[in-house]
């Protein structure tokens, strides 16, 4: 299957030809990065003001609203698999992505007219459906447009641009509310305009056919073929490792809560903690992507989890240093930079081009489901034993899972693809 992959990736040699430099990023990747950046500005604008809008604008209490969240989680995993499968059928990556981005874009003006919790919940569910549908096709397009040996870097560039958008969004929303007090309608309208630009950039500047012409002997994109991917040794190993490590990855909110409890982070800084992680992710995504291309994705992926283990360890004892929150957040961001795009780069090497979107969706969904299970288990452990013991258990579990992952150790896909190490 690796042979099929390198044979049938027309965009990859093109990328190498046009730039002449080793492992330069393909224009398609930059265009997709721009789409993600713009779209994240749009979505994070809304995320940043939504609680305030609900509480002070509509006078609703958002607490009841959180109950819907669990439902979305399972739903978005299913949607992701569907998006991945639809994109592979006939190589319609771009079409599915356009639909996904478009669906999220039209949800923004709908927030203007939705004024009750169930309606707002429905709009957000549609927004997430769009996100779920587009993710796998987009990642497939990134991998198909990049030379195999430069995929880590390509995903790094994409994730950095994506995160930059996520950091800019709240700032834009804040500036609008500065101009117009209580101007939530303006925030939603501007968010829609920004999202529309994102869709337009996708339509205009991302080539329609990133997928290869189907070779006669290539597997046909069907649900059966997608599931049969798990029969492939490398895919199975990767998926298992992602699943195993995901089972010991405590959700972000718990990390921030632990950080606040252990290190007495002042209240006014609490909302800024996710920004610390994002900033580190932004800065490290490209260097770690490049490193993954050079030393192997698997090593970097595992290294990312080692960074997470260090972050857990730092949260454990009673030390209190002024620098500790920064170190923990930097390690948390490092974990994302070393795992998020890198896993996709590694998976891309194990999945044939014809089933790329389904394969990536399968691995993403496995990882996300495992993390969801971990969050539930962690909450229960916290309840039963207290936060310190729960964290110690999570750290031990991560160490065990990492050891298991080392034993499973998928072959280095970069090497298989013929790149000298």
């Amino acid at each position, binding site marked *: 299957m690796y042979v099929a992959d390198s044979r049938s990736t027309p965009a990859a040699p093109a990328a190498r030809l046009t730039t002449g430099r080793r492992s330069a990023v393909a224009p398609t990747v930059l265009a997709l990065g721009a789409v993600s950046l713009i779209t994240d500005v749009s979505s994070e604008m809304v995320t940043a003001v939504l609680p305030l809008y609900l509480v002070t604008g509509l006078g609703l209490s958002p*607490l*009841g609203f959180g109950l819907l*969240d669990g439902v979305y989680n399972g739903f978005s995993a299913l949607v992701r698999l569907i998006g991945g499968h639809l994109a592979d059928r006939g190589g319609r990556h771009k079409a599915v992505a356009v639909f996904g981005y478009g669906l999220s874009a039209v949800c923004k003006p709908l927030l203007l007219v939705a004024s009750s919790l169930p309606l707002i919940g429905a709009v957000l569910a549609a927004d997430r459906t769009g996100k779920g549908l587009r993710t796998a096709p987009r990642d497939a397009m990134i991998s198909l447009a990049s030379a195999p040996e430069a995929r880590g870097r390509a995903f790094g560039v994409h994730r950095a641009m994506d995160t930059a958008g996520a950091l800019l969004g*709240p700032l834009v929303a*804040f500036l609008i509310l500065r101009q117009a007090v209580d101007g939530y309608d*303006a925030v939603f309208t501007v968010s829609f305009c920004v999202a529309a630009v994102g869709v337009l950039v996708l339509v205009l*500047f991302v080539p329609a056919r990133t997928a290869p012409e189907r070779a006669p002997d290539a597997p046909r994109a069907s649900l059966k073929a997608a599931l049969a991917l798990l029969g492939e040794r490398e895919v199975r190993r990767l998926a298992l490792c992602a699943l195993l490590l995901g089972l010991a990855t405590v959700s972000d909110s718990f990390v921030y809560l632990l950080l606040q409890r252990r290190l007495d982070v002042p209240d006014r800084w*609490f909302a800024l903690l996710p920004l610390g992680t994002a900033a580190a992710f932004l800065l490290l995504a490209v260097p770690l992507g490049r490193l993954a291309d050079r030393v192997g994705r698997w090593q970097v992926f595992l290294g990312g989890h080692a960074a997470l283990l260090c972050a857990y360890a730092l949260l454990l004892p009673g030390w209190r240093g002024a620098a500790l929150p920064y170190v923990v957040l930097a390690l948390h961001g490092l974990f994302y930079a070393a795992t998020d795009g890198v896993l996709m780069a590694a998976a891309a090497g194990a999945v044939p081009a014809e089933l790329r979107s389904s394969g990536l969706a399968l691995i993403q969904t496995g990882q996300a489901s495992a993390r969801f299970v971990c969050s539930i288990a962690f909450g229960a452990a916290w309840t039963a034993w207290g936060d310190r013991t729960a964290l110690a258990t999570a750290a031990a579990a991560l160490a065990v899972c990492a050891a298991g992952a080392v034993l499973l150790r998928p072959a280095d896909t970069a090497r298989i693809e013929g790149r000298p190490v």
Partner: protein
Amino acid sequence: MTLRGKLIVLVTALVVLAGVATASVLHAAGREDRKNRVQAGGPPVRGGQVSLAPDSDRRIVFRNMAWGPHRDELATVPAADPSGPRTASGVKCLRFYAAAGTGVCLRAERGAVQDGYRAVILDARLKERAHYSLPGIPTRARVSPSGRLAAWTVFVGGDSYAGTNFSTRTAILDTRTGRLTKTLEDFSIERDGHPYRASDVNFWGVTFADDEHFYATMATGKKTYLVRGDLTARKVTTLRTNLECPSLSPDGTRLAFKKRVPGLPADAPWRLYVLDLATMRETALAEPRSVDDQLVWQDDRTVTYSLPGDFGADLYTLPADGTGSPHRLLTAGLAPAYLG
């Protein structure tokens, strides 16, 4: 399409969308300006000296939402003439409560890159005595009858991307000693007679009995409970399920609260009830609408609450014994407290 063509399409769209975006911001900003002009037929408001001290004239203090230069300032109006002229203080709060000359004001603080929130303790002349930074968006505020304790609840946002998971954090401050309980989640919990611990516990809506005991809502495992709290013992005990935002009557015998009634639409699930603490019997109040507010007692027979109105919210009163019908107390007002 050629690259040139694509760029033309993109630039054209950018110009159009930028126009729409700018227009929406200008429209929203303009609407704010209009709100700063006095609305014909609205209640008369004038600036002046506002005191929280209990004096002989019984007054209502509240967020004045009427359009005009004093929009969203704390204002007072005589309790005997609630639609009469309002005296605005110049002080702005998102949530406010006052008792015995102590006020707690939860307000937004503009920062360089994002807004922060703080709880400000005000003396009888609305002078700041102390302030505390808040980890989220203010939702409930209360002061104990003696004016010594203040409690507040904020919503704390969770994750990034379309994160809809909120939790609350409730703090209690002893204004005399400055001792701050940052979150009631640190208290020990006795549920149905047994010690209880869970990571998903949330508290909100404190109402004080005295300077040591309080009632509040606790949520865990998708259920809400009425709890009675003891500040000295740092402990809460569950008394009942499905009871939110309690408010203790002045004589300390009853709690007015909102209750999630099965079968009602999910966007309007609450109805008002009063619980007699001696008999633990509930009485439904005669308000057919869903009320998402923490009630305030006007006296031992009447409760006051807010409902959405043309200018933000209006205040209503209702007999606390299940009889009668809602009566509009005043328009364009929020977060009331009775002084004197």
